């Protein structure tokens, strides 16, 4: 390697490792960082290909085919898809009635079609009679509470079989929550995928709705696992292990440095 003439260059040249010498730590670090950046860029480009993006969405969909059931439960939200699929399941004879959260005491806002008012209106508009709508115990605010609600219902109806309708990307998280909450009762529950809401599942990355639904579902899955699952303990153990290894490496490096100076 040639160096330009000059005092600074000459110093650098003096500091550069000669043949047979081990490269200095900062040179190694530079190479490591560069390799990581190149690897991350390559991995990012590869993962951003449509095949993988599509696979990321497909992995979230664990919906099952319909099975003859007593009830179909509509999870709250996505009022343009979930209640309409539930109504179609009843019309096709897969279920006899629909389980819905009861109406809260406050008045519905006509400018915001929100569950459970809009779910009920959608079911009626789809030909479901009021007598085919069964009110659950309380109005839940999130999937975890909906699972609690279904658990109560299955305890009171030990022979009942239920299909749960939600949008395709939500099925994996819903399935994890239901399995965790229902235990043995989960055998009596099947998850039915409604189409993605406002975007095409096969090209979700081209739509703002898909961009929100798919990556956000991964974030929520992680947060749910951290909060309600064992992931927080696994990550804590991993962090302690890494901290321990780093401390050990640091102490070893210091002791080696001390022994070389003596």
């Amino acid at each position: 390697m040639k160096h330009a003439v000059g005092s600074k260059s000459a110093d650098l040249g003096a500091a550069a490792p000669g043949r047979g010498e081990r490269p200095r730590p900062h040179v190694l670090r530079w190479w490591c960082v560069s390799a990581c950046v190149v690897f991350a860029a390559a991995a990012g480009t590869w993962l951003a290909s449509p095949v993988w993006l599509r696979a990321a969405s497909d992995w979230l969909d664990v919906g099952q085919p319909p099975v003859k059931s007593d009830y179909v439960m509509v999870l709250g939200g996505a009022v343009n898809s979930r209640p309409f699929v539930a109504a179609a399941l009843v019309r096709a004879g897969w279920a006899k009635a629909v389980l819905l959260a009861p109406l809260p005491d406050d008045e519905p806002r006509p400018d915001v079609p929100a569950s459970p008012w809009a779910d009920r209106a959608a079911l009626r508009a789809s030909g479901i009679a009021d007598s085919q709508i069964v009110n659950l115990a309380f109005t839940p605010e999130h999937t975890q509470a909906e699972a609690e609600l279904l658990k109560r219902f299955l305890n009171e109806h030990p022979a009942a079989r239920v299909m749960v309708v939600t949008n395709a990307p939500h099925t994996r998280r819903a399935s994890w929550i239901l399995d965790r909450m229902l235990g043995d009762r989960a055998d009596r529950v099947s998850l039915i995928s409604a189409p993605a809401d406002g975007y095409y599942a096969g090209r979700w990355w081209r739509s703002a709705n898909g961009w929100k639904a798919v990556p956000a579902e991964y974030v929520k899955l992680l947060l749910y696992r951290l909060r309600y699952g064992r992931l927080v303990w696994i990550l804590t153990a991993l962090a302690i292990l890494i901290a321990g290894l780093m401390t050990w490496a640091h102490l070893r490096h210091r002791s080696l440095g001390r022994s070389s100076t003596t």
Partner: protein
Amino acid sequence: MLIVAVAVLTAGWAAGRWLVLDQPETGATHALLFDHPELGALAAEWYRARPGRRLLYAEPLQRRIVTSGAWPPQRDAIIESLHAEGVPRKAFKALDGEADNEWAALRRLGRWLDNNPQARVALLTDAFSTRRLSYVAGRVLPAEQAQRVSTVALPPPRVDPDRWWQSRSGWKAVLFGWLDLAFAYTRGEGEVRPDDWDPDEHVRRLADSPEAGS
């Protein structure tokens, strides 16, 4: 430890604050209303504080809940909601046609601004959507028109923008705010899927899928 805690809190605060771009209205003659769960009440409040101004609205794409007859069109519902809050019907004007998203709504606003050269418009939207909306307005509207609009941050429902991390709704709002902003910056408008699928056909397809009966 204290330094780390302060740094984390500051970063959290900044992550939410960065999304909020509340601009001075500088003589707005009109307000364009964007989606917000408490739109009727907040738009009426804006109107009462500035009597004589007018409210504009771009009808969104008609979704299945409306086309099935289950729910009234949003435009009718908003007019009723504003009327109930004391806003006269003549103060409300709907822009022509339907807008799939805020890009299309702002394009409609641009056409309207062409015919109303004296008008200045405040864009009323959820606080966490203001930076995105300002960016979209800059992309969609010519420079002269972009100078005549400003974004006004409406308080997000059930979330304090300065303490968003204290509630589940806050986490959701900031996460979606960032995802929306990232999409607008990197991909632009994107596509919107109309409710073009048939529920009965969808159920038939699920029943006929290879896993059925296994």
